[in-house]
C-alpha cells in the first residue's frame, strides 16, 4: 500500500469505564485499520496502522465523536514505524504511567439496560445490578487506578461464562464494562429484618408490602444506605422523623417516573432535564398544592426535593411500589450516611424495620447531589453523586499540585493539578469523628487514584476548623492560608472560568476574617490572588457564640436590645433569658462580633416567622425565604455608613509558630493582583439594623408576614446594589460575583441579580459548585494557584 502509516494515539480525559475501547475497536475495524488499544493509568493508548487518510479520519472521530459518557480532554498522535502486525486487538491494562486516568462518576441506569430489566426473555430480567459501559456504579466502587475490575469492589465476583463472553466481545455493550454481572455470577439482593434474618419470598414484592404497611425500609443504594417510607403515610413519615431524630429538615422524595414527579411538583424544562439526566440529583421543585404527600415530609415548605430512580434496584422497587417514597440518608441526624453493611445494621437497626441490601460493597460513601434551578440554569446546592470525581477545568491551574482542605460544614476537599480540579464528594460536617476520617481517607484515596501528591496545601484561616488543623499537620507540603470569603469569591470566579478582579459579595453564616473577627456580609474587591475588604455589614455581637447560631432569637435580641417592646412575640417567647442575652451582647460575654448576613436573616426570621431555635443549618433563613410573597415589591431601606478605611492591622498574633503566618500578615497591595484597581476612598458598613427595625415596625403595625419577608429580601438586594455602586464609584469595577451560603436563597439571588443588571453590572453566580461551603475547597485551590503564579513560580 502506497501510504501505509502507523500512529500512536493518546487520549486523556474520562475515557475509562465508559465504553471507549469498544468504540475504538469498532471505529478502527470500520476504517479497515489494524493495531491495538489499551488502558493505562493516564488514559487510553492506541496504535493504528493503515491508509494515512483512514488514520487521519480515525483521530478526528476519536476527538469529535467519542461515546456519550466519555469526556475527551486531549488527543495527541505521532507517527511511529509500521509493524505490519495483522488484526486489531485490545491489550491488557498496564500499570505504567503517572496515574492520571480519570474515573467516571456513577451513572444512572441507561435505557438499554432498563429494557433488559423489563424483558422476561433477557437473562438479566429483574436483576437489580444490571449495567453496561453506558451506565452503572463507578466512583463509589473503585478502589484503585487504573479502572479495571480488579481495582473495584466487583473483584470478588468472578464472571460467569456468559458475562465473560460479553465482557470480551468488542461488539457488546458490555465490552470491558467492569461491573458487568448477572444473576448467575453477580451480587445478590436480600431482604432481611432488623435482626438480619432473611425475609423469604420475592424481596421487591415483600419490600413493597412493608412500605404499604407503613414500615421503614433501609435501602442500600449506590453511594450509601437510604431510609424509605411511603410519602403519603403521615404516621410513618412522622415515625421516621422521630426515630432519625430529624425534627424539621425536609425529606427528599423518589418518584417512580417523570409523570409521578409532575403529580407532586411543577417541573420546568431545565428541571426535567436535571431530573432525567444521568447524574440524577435531588432537584428542588415547586410543590403542587394537591401533592399527595404527608405534611411531615417537608413541613411548611413550598418546595420539595425530588429525584427519579437511578439504579436498577430503585427502578424495580418503584415498579413494585409506584407511589412516591421518602428516600432520606440512612443515618441519625447530623451523622454521615451509612455505607458499610456493618455500620448500617449497627446504626440503623433502631430506625429501619427491614433492610433491602446486597453484597456489592460500596467503597466511597457518596451522598445524593442536590440542585435547584435559577434562571433556567442549574444552581448546585450539593455536588456529589453523579458528578464526582469529574474534574472541573481550571483556566489558570496551579504550577505545583494543590490540595484545598475546605471548611468545616458541608465539607469537601479539592485536589488539583494542571488544569484539573477534582472536587471531592460531599464529606459532611467535620465535627464528627467518622466524617473527619472520611476526609482524611478521602484525600488519600484521591491522591492515589489520580496520582497527585500535593506540594501546596491550602486551608481556611479558622484555627479551630478540623480541616485547618489537618492542613497544618501536613508537613510534607507548603501551607497556604486562604480567607474564607475570599475563597467563596474565588470559587465563583473559578466556577465561571473568570479571573477578576471583581466586586465580590460574599454573604454567608460565619467565616474567620483576616482580622480575627467573624465575617459573613462582605463586599470584597477580589482577584484570584488577593482581596481587599471594601465594605461589610455593620458588626453585631453574637451572644453565646454557637448558641446564637442555634437560637436565632438571640440575634433578634442582639439587634433590638432591651428597647424591644415586651409584647413583641420574639421577646415575649424568650422573656426569661432576653435581658441576660442583651447583657451578654452588651458586655461582650462570649459575644464575638460578626458582620454575618446569615445572622441578619436569623434575626428577621425570629421576628417574622417565630423561628426561635433551629434544628439544621440555615433553617431560619430557608423558612423566611419560603414564606416571602414574591409579588411584593416594597423594600426596606438600609444606610451605608462610611467607616474609616479598613486598617490592614492583624488583630492577633499567629497562634503558634507553625500557624499560617501569611494569613495574618497584611499583604502588600502589589501582591494582591489588584495593582490595577484604585485604592478605595474608605470602607463602608451597611447598617443591617435598619432592616431589622423596619421589619419590626411592620410586624407591630400588623403587616402580613409574607409581605414583611419579601420587603426584607428586597431590602437586602438593595443593600447589595448600593454596596456595589459604592465600590464601582471607587474602583470602576463593573463585574460582581455573588457567593456564600446566603445565595442559595433564590429569591434574594433573583432580586439582587435583577437590580445589579439594571444598573449595568455583569453578575457571576454559581453553576458547577455550590455557593455554600461545599465550594470553598475549589476557591482555596484557585487562590493558591494564582499565588503560585504571582510569585513567579515556574
Amino acid at each position, binding site marked *: 500500500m502506497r501510504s501505509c502509516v502507523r500512529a500512536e494515539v493518546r487520549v486523556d480525559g474520562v475515557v475509562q469505564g465508559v465504553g471507549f475501547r469498544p468504540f475504538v475497536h469498532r471505529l478502527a475495524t470500520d476504517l479497515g485499520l489494524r493495531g491495538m488499544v489499551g488502558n493505562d493509568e493516564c488514559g487510553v493508548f492506541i496504535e493504528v496502522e493503515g491508509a494515512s487518510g483512514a488514520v487521519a479520519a480515525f483521530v478526528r472521530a476519536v476527538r469529535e465523536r467519542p461515546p456519550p459518557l466519555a469526556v475527551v480532554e486531549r488527543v495527541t498522535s505521532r507517527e511511529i514505524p509500521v509493524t505490519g502486525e495483522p488484526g486489531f486487538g485490545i491489550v491488557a491494562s498496564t500499570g505504567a504511567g503517572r496515574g492520571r486516568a480519570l474515573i467516571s462518576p456513577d451513572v444512572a441506569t441507561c435505557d438499554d439496560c432498563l429494557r433488559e430489566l423489563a424483558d422476561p426473555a433477557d437473562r438479566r430480567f429483574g436483576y437489580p445490578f444490571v449495567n453496561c459501559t453506558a451506565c452503572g456504579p463507578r466512583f463509589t466502587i473503585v478502589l484503585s487506578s487504573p479502572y479495571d475490575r480488579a481495582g473495584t469492589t466487583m473483584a470478588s465476583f468472578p464472571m460467569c461464562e456468559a458475562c465473560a463472553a460479553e465482557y470480551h466481545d468488542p461488539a457488546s455493550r458490555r465490552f470491558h464494562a467492569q461491573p458487568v454481572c448477572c444473576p448467575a455470577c453477580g451480587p445478590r439482593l436480600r431482604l432481611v429484618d432488623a435482626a438480619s434474618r432473611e425475609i423469604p419470598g420475592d424481596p421487591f414484592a415483600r419490600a413493597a408490602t412493608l412500605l404499604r404497611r407503613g414500615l421503614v425500609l433501609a435501602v442500600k443504594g449506590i453511594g450509601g444506605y437510604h431510609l424509605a417510607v411511603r410519602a403519603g403515610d403521615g404516621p410513618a413519615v412522622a415515625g421516621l422523623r422521630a426515630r432519625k431524630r430529624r425534627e424539621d429538615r425536609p425529606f427528599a422524595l423518589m418518584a417512580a417516573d417523570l409523570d409521578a414527579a409532575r403529580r407532586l411538583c411543577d417541573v420546568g424544562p431545565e428541571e426535567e432535564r436535571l431530573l432525567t439526566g444521568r447524574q440524577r440529583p435531588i432537584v428542588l421543585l415547586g410543590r403542587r398544592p394537591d401533592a399527595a404527600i404527608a405534611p411531615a415530609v417537608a413541613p411548611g415548605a413550598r418546595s420539595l426535593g425530588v429525584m427519579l430512580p437511578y439504579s436498577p434496584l430503585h427502578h424495580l422497587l418503584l415498579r413494585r411500589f409506584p407511589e412516591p417514597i421518602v428516600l432520606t440518608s440512612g443515618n441519625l441526624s447530623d451523622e454521615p450516611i451509612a455505607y458499610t453493611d456493618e455500620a448500617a445494621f449497627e446504626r440503623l437497626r433502631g430506625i429501619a424495620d427491614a433492610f433491602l441490601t446486597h453484597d456489592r460493597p460500596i467503597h466511597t460513601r457518596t451522598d445524593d447531589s442536590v440542585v435547584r434551578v435559577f434562571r433556567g440554569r442549574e444552581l448546585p446546592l450539593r455536588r456529589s453523586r453523579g458528578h464526582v470525581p469529574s474534574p472541573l477545568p481550571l483556566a489558570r491551574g496551579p504550577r505545583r499540585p494543590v490540595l484545598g482542605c475546605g471548611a*468545616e460544614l458541608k465539607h469537601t476537599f479539592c485536589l488539583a493539578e494542571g488544569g484539573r480540579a477534582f472536587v471531592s464528594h460531599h464529606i459532611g460536617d467535620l465535627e464528627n*469523628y467518622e466524617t473527619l476520617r472520611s476526609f482524611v481517607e478521602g484525600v488519600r484515596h484521591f491522591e492515589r487514584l489520580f496520582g497527585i501528591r500535593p506540594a501546596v496545601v491550602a486551608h481556611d484561616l479558622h484555627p479551630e476548623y478540623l480541616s485547618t488543623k489537618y492542613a497544618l499537620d501536613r508537613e510534607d507540603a507548603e501551607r497556604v492560608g486562604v480567607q474564607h470569603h475570599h475563597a467563596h469569591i474565588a470559587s465563583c470566579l473559578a466556577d465561571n472560568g473568570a479571573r477578576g478582579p471583581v466586586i465580590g459579595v460574599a454573604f454567608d453564616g460565619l467565616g*474567620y476574617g483576616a482580622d480575627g473577627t467573624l465575617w459573613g456580609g462582605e463586599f470584597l474587591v477580589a482577584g484570584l490572588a488577593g482581596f481587599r475588604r471594601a465594605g461589610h455589614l455593620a458588626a453585631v455581637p453574637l*451572644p453565646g457564640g*454557637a448558641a446564637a*447560631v442555634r437560637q436565632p432569637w438571640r440575634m433578634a435580641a442582639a439587634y433590638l436590645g432591651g428597647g424591644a417592646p415586651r409584647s413583641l412575640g420574639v421577646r415575649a417567647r424568650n422573656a426569661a433569658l432576653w435581658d441576660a442575652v442583651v447583657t451578654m451582647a452588651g458586655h461582650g460575654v462570649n459575644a464575638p462580633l460578626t458582620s454575618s448576613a*446569615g445572622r441578619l436573616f436569623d434575626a428577621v426570621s425570629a421576628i417574622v416567622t417565630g423561628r426561635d431555635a433551629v434544628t439544621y443549618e440555615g433553617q431560619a433563613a430557608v423558612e423566611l425565604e419560603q414564606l416571602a410573597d414574591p409579588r411584593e415589591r416594597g423594600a426596606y431601606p438600609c444606610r451605608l455608613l462610611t467607616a474609616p478605611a479598613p486598617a490592614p492591622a492583624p488583630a492577633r498574633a499567629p497562634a503558634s509558630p507553625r500557624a499560617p503566618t501569611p494569613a495574618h500578615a497584611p499583604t502588600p497591595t502589589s501582591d494582591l493582583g489588584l495593582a490595577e484597581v484604585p485604592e478605595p476612598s474608605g470602607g463602608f458598613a451597611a447598617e443591617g439594623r435598619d432592616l431589622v427595625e423596619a421589619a419590626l415596625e411592620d410586624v407591630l403595625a400588623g403587616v402580613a408576614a409574607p409581605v414583611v419577608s419579601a420587603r426584607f429580601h428586597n431590602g437586602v438586594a438593595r443593600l447589595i446594589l448600593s454596596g456595589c455602586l459604592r465600590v464601582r464609584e471607587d474602583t470602576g469595577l463593573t463585574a460582581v460575583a455573588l457567593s456564600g451560603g446566603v445565595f442559595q436563597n433564590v429569591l434574594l439571588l433573583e432580586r439582587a441579580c435583577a437590580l445589579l443588571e439594571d444598573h449595568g453590572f455583569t453578575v457571576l453566580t454559581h453553576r458547577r459548585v455550590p455557593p455554600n461551603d461545599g465550594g470553598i475547597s475549589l476557591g482555596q485551590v484557585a487562590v493558591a494557584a494564582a499565588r503560585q503564579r504571582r510569585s513567579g513560580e515556574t
Partner: protein
Amino acid sequence: LAHGAGGKAGRTLVEAVFLEAFRNPLLEPLADGAILAPGTSRERPDAERPVERSADGRVDQAASAPALAFTTDSYVVTPLFFPGGDIGDLAVNGTVNDLAMCGARPEHLSAAFILEEGFPIADLRRIAATMAEAARAAGVTIVTGDTKVVQRGKADGCYITTAGVGTVAPGVRLGASEVRPGDAVIVSGPIGEHGVTVMLARGGLDIEADDLVSDTAPLNGLTARLLDACPGRQVRCLRDATRGGVATVLNEVAQTAEVAVVVEEEAVPVRPSVRGACELLGIDPLYVACEGRMVAVVAGDRADAALAALRGHPLGEGAAVVGRIGEDPPGLVLLKTGFGGTRIVDLLVGDPLPRIC
C-alpha cells in the same frame, strides 16, 4: 489573649519559649509539678543515685525514700471576689492541687503578691484571711513570701504567685504516659462550676441560681484516699481540670499516651444550674475551668474501688466514671453523644469561636 486560654496556643508558647530556654529532664514532661528524687541536681539529675525514668521523663519514685515535689503557679482572676471564693482561695488551693496531682502530700507554700498602687487594704486583709483559712483546710503552712507594689494601671488590682513543696511516698508514679487502653476515666465531681460562676460575675449577669458557686477546694485529701484505695500504680494519672477544663486535660492524656479517650456524654456530671448557665452563655461545660475537680485515670478493674474511695469523701460525692481509654484513634478525645454520634472534643487553639458557617 489566646495564649492564656489554656489550650494549644498556651502549650505552644511554653514549648517555644521556656522549654527551649530551660530544657532539662525534670521540666520536659511539662507537668503540674516536678518531682525531685533525693540527691538529684540540675546538672546531673542521675549522678548521685540512679533513678528509673518513665517515657515522659517523669522520675520513677520506686525507691524507698520519699521524694520532694515542687510546683509554682500565678493567679490572675477577674473579679477578685466571686461567689464561693476569691483569688486567695485559688492561690492556695491551686498550688496544693498541683502537688496533689503529682501524688504528693503538700507541706509548705510560699506566697508572692503584686499589688496595684491604691489597692484597698481591706481587700488585701480579706484575701489574706481566705488564704489562711484555705491553708488550714489543706493542712499546709505558708512559710515565706514577698510583696511588690506597681504603679496604678500597671496591674489589675492584685496578682498572687504561690509555690509549694510536698512529699511523694515511695512507689508512687503518676503521669499521662502511664495511661493505657482499658483504663477508666473518672471525674471527681460535677464540672464547670468555677468557670461559669466567674464568667457570670464578670459579665454582670444576674441569673437565678443560688447553688452556683466556685468549686475551689483542696484535693489532697481526695487524692490521698484514692492512692490508698488503688495502690501499686493502679492510679495512672491525676490532673486538676483548671484552665481549658476536662476537655483539655483529656486531650493532653490522649496525646501524651497516644491513646483514644472515649467519653460518654451522658455520664459527665454537670449540675443543672451549671448546664443552664452554660446554655445561656453558649459554652461547653467540658471546656470550663474547675478549681476543685480532678480527672483520674485508673486501671479499668479498679474503677469501682476508686469510685467508692472518692465518693466516701465530701469533695468526691459526685464522682463518676465518664469514659474509657481505648487504642484507636490515638491522640483523640471522642464524645459519644446521647444519639449514638461520635463528636471530636478537640484541643482549642485559642478562644472558642463558632465553627458554623
